[in-house]
């Protein structure tokens, strides 16, 4: 707390100011180029997953809308980018744009349905729609390649200059740049009046109509934005790996992203990024163990977070920092 009382505007301005920690965080994301050149492919996967988690953060962390089917939009973006490169044009940036538009449109259509509901009905609808999308991708073999994955994707150079190399320099640079740009957008959104309205929805769904707020319209907008971002993340995965698989649209992916976001701390923008980094690196390190044992630890972690660390790692850290400042 500042000693000099701030004017209300100055106070709100201060809320959205960049902190040194944030700047350091983004500078640190450049380190893998020099320190971990062997892990750039992994770093690129982390950046993509972080973007996916960031998209869910807008929906869940800010608007408080629980979705168990967020991978639907990731998958739509992934397949759109794959099909676009295969049949239309292999240029990456137009591919991202088309994927964003298609997934935003799907998100908007889905939001027309889900924005009317809360609680169990909402959870069931997002789960049902997610499973439906997965089933469609699986059955539409002629279009998606079904369980074999989409074949024949080839992506041109980024901006016509950077080829996707074997070491992942281009992949990581490209994913990181897209992540950073969309992070700036997300940051702008959460510090806008709309971002405040989303927090209002999360904090009290009953009160919102009583202050004249069209909550459903807000949720539709949030859903559309989150779907577009998730779709871009999916498209990035397709482009950097030159493949699109059913896994990208599966329930497992929806559950994983939820775990990452909650582990890192929802509603703080950075929670999803940190959660994604920890999750992906841990999975890479323990890639030898059977999936069911990997999920054993994830399960324990979830139980632990819910019972002891309700605001995730970042929430815990900021509580520690507050206590330290007090004493």
């Amino acid at each position, binding site marked *: *707390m500042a000693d000099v009382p*701030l004017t*209300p*505007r100055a*106070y*709100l*301005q201060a*809320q*959205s100011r960049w902190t040194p920690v944030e700047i350091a965080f983004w500078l640190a994301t450049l380190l893998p180029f020099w320190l971990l050149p062997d892990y750039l492919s992994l770093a690129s996967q982390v950046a993509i997953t972080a973007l996916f988690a960031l998209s869910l953060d807008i929906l869940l962390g800010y608007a408080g809308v629980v979705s168990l089917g967020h991978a639907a939009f990731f998958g739509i973006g992934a397949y759109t980018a794959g099909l676009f490169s295969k049949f239309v044009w292999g240029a990456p940036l137009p591919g991202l744009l088309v994927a964003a538009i298609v997934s935003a449109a799907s998100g908007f259509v889905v939001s027309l349905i889900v924005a009317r509901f809360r609680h169990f009905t909402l959870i069931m609808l997002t789960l049902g729609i997610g499973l439906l999308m997965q089933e469609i991708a699986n059955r539409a073999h002629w279009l998606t390649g079904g369980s074999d994955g989409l074949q024949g994707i080839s992506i041109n150079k980024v901006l016509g200059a950077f080829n996707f190399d074997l070491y992942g320099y281009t992949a990581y640079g490209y994913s990181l740049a897209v992540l950073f740009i969309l992070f700036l957008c997300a940051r*702008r*959104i959460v*510090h*806008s*009046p*709309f*971002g*405040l*309205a989303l*927090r*209002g929805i999360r*904090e*009290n769904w*009953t*009160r*919102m*109509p*009583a*202050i*004249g*707020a*069209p*909550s459903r*319209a*807000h949720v539709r*907008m949030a859903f559309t*934005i989150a779907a577009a971002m998730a779709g871009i993340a999916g498209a990035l995965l397709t482009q950097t790996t030159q493949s699109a698989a059913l896994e990208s649209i599966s329930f497992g992916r929806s559950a994983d992203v939820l775990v990452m976001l909650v582990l890192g701390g929802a509603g703080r923008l950075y929670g999803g990024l940190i959660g994604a980094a920890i999750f992906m690196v841990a999975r890479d390190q323990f890639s030898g163990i059977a999936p069911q044992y990997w999920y054993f630890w994830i399960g324990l972690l979830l139980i632990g977070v819910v019972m002891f660390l309700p605001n995730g790692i970042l929430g815990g850290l900021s509580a520690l920092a507050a206590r330290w400042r007090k004493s």
Partner: protein
Amino acid sequence: MEKVVTATPEIALSTRGLSKQFGSLAVTQDVTIDLPKGVRYALIGPNGAGKTTLINLITGMLKPDGGSILLGADDVTSLEPQQRVTRGLARTFQINTLFPSLNPLEAVTLAVAERRREAGEFWTSLSSHAESIEEAYGILARLKLGEVCYQPTRQLPYGRQRLLEIALALATRPKVLLLDEPAAGVPQEESGDIFEAVANLSNDLTLLFIEHDMHVVFRFASHIIVLVGGAIFTQGSPAEISADPRVREVYLGTRQHG
């Protein structure tokens, strides 16, 4: 009050034969009321009489089984709650219904921004909306919440939270304001502050408040509606109501046991 009424007063809010059942329990029965513009009405009745339910029906938080609601001359029965707010009907809640992790400045700025239709803007920064922020701060300062306006709502003392309830409602610039026990749960010595704030509200505002403390009711209301078992038992001026032995029996009787 003047004795001679020359013209029929303009009606700000009215209900026609409103009714609501919860299962077999009739909580609102054929309620017809008219609130003239600029008056201060009190709604009283024993616990469980259906007062809060009536407010929920009027504001659209519950759908009535029968009857209609008029705001001015317009039938708003089929409108969504937020549409009624936009047309100037606001309320507060008996049980705090606030935004626990937002601070009062953010909460009231949100309400102002919603009214000014700025809350859908996702590409402008909140701090650039100077007018909304100033207006929100003005409302908070008027309700003596200025010095706590950066503290998260959940950390505020309970009495301040009750004031914030009113601040949020005022931010919608209501024509009709329904206050559901604004001082509920506040110790006697602090409830004066809250009713002082209510008394200082603009005279153009049409007010209906629920309150159990009869001293407060007689002091602030120009007209009293007594609700018992979901139906209007009687209504009249404070003098009439305080002289009515049946009201004493029904209302004060149950209160003392409760």
